[in-house]
């Protein structure tokens, strides 16, 4: 390591910062930047890992757009995202508002709601698969208690996705709550006191103080949760395996299948490139919104 004094460090070319950054730069280059560029290249080839990639131009993309299964996986991803994101954010906001007051054992409550978020998705998937089990699941038992018919939760086309959505809300709501709670604590108490003096009710306090001041928290959560939604895989893989049929196959699962079961690296990567562009444009939109504030 260099032992230059502070003065000479400024005047002479200093290797130290580059040396300190080297491990990160090498890793980012090898496993992030090169793979991104590489992905675009592979997506334009036909390649099953045997032999060398054959250049096919945009053929993979053309094929994707005509493939029914691709559109189903896209639709499932949207279905999953559009339902889980608003619901988990709503539950999170509700929990945060209720929790943001003098309540005994607040820490334990917060910890309880947050616990599912640190549980691995595989574990969560196993627990919920057991809960939703058709024959011995606790949910079906509760249904029979109130005189309803047991349902084939994870083995029916119509109910599999809603079941996974319920499990997702269990995982994600507490996370949204903790982030919203942090946002709420940043709002000065005086705002509410002033509003109360002016005779504003709880509802208009929420409408004119809480909601606008939580704006950036909401945008942040929206982007993060939508990305989570687009990236969903583990939970679905464990709970339903993408089935029955294709009813819960999402985009990442489709990419995984095409690459590692079918062995079509080029075709699978083309789907990944589409996913990448979707997420990229979404984040760009977020950044533009952020800057305009």
């Amino acid at each position: 390591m260099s032992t230059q004094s502070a003065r000479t460090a400024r005047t002479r070319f200093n290797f130290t910062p580059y040396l300190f950054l080297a491990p990160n730069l090498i890793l980012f280059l090898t496993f992030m930047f090169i793979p991104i560029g590489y992905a675009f290249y592979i997506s334009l080839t036909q390649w099953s890992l045997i032999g060398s990639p054959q250049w096919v131009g945009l053929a993979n993309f053309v094929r994707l757009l005509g493939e029914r299964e691709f559109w189903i996986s896209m639709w499932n991803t949207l279905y999953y995202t559009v339902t889980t994101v608003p619901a988990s954010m709503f539950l999170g906001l509700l929990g945060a508002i209720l929790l943001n007051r003098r309540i005994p054992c607040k820490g334990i409550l917060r910890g309880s709601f947050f616990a599912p978020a640190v549980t691995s998705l595989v574990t969560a998937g196993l627990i919920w698969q057991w809960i939703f089990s058709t024959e011995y699941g606790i949910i079906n038992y509760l249904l029979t208690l109130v005189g309803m018919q047991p349902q084939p939760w994870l083995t029916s086309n119509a109910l599999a996705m809603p079941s996974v959505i319920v499990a997702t809300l269990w995982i994600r709501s507490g996370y949204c709550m903790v982030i919203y709670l942090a946002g709420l604590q940043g709002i000065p108490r005086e705002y509410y006191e002033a509003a109360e003096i002016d005779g504003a009710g709880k509802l208009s306090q929420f409408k004119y103080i809480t909601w606008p001041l939580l704006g950036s928290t909401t945008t942040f959560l929206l982007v993060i949760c939508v990305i989570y939604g687009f990236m969903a895989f583990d939970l679905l893989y464990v709970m339903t395996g993408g089935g029955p049929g294709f009813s819960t196959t999402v985009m990442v699962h489709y990419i995984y299948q095409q690459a590692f079961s079918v062995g079509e690296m080029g075709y699978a990567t083309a789907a990944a490139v589409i996913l990448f562009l979707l997420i990229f444009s979404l984040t760009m939109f977020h950044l533009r919104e952020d800057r305009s504030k």
Partner: protein
Amino acid sequence: MNSNKHSKNFWIAVLLWLAALVTLFPFFWMGSTALKGARELFLRPPVFVPHYPEWSNFAKVFTVAPFGRYFMNSAIVAGLSVILTVFINLLAGYTFAKYRFKGRKVLLLMIVATMMVPFQVIMVPNFIIISALGWLNSYLGLIIPRAAEAFGLFLSKQFMDDIPDELIEAARIDGQSEFRIFTGIILPNCRPLIGVLATFTFMWRWNDFIWPLIILSKKEMFTVQLGMSNLIGQFYVEWNLLMAVALLSVLPVLAIFLMFQRFFVQGITTTGMKG
């Protein structure tokens, strides 16, 4: 007015406790199932607290599949990842915060931009790179591609920005080497940051699923998550054993969170806890 407010808070507390119980129920059900014997498992009405708890289920888990090996693999991967990732993130964060050098802004921007690229999107190219390196079915293959991540690096930089420059200047005048300044003066001032980084890195790596799923085919290299999902693929699922191993798999993450819980709320809110 005051008593009215008190009773309102009371009802809100009741509501929150009910919600918390509902949230915790799946965990309770996991624990309860884990302790059931074959007979109590399928009883109707279901048994909530097993009358004859089968503690031996936890031992039996290690005989249905080599879970001892899986736990060791996960511990090695998560443990080494924490050491490597936390160290290089602190070093890079410090460099971006306290050095002025050519390309600083561009490099930082490029690294921060990688937060927009979820790993799942580049998993296929990474798989190809790893197999070219001969790292399939290896600890290296599990650890190295995920070692650099931008959230921890950025968090470190933000934290180190607040460390006074005078501290570093004084050490330089004393003639300490740059690396000694980092390890001897900077790191001892970063304990909360290190706690947050270690907690999250451990959790992310311990819970990793899709990457191990892709690059591991040899059973003896399986992680805990992979071992569990593999069990369910078998034709007959022994739910009590599955819940027992699920319970065991949660304990390390829980232990780390309890260890560092002072820092963790702060950590979640600043990192957004991205995986």
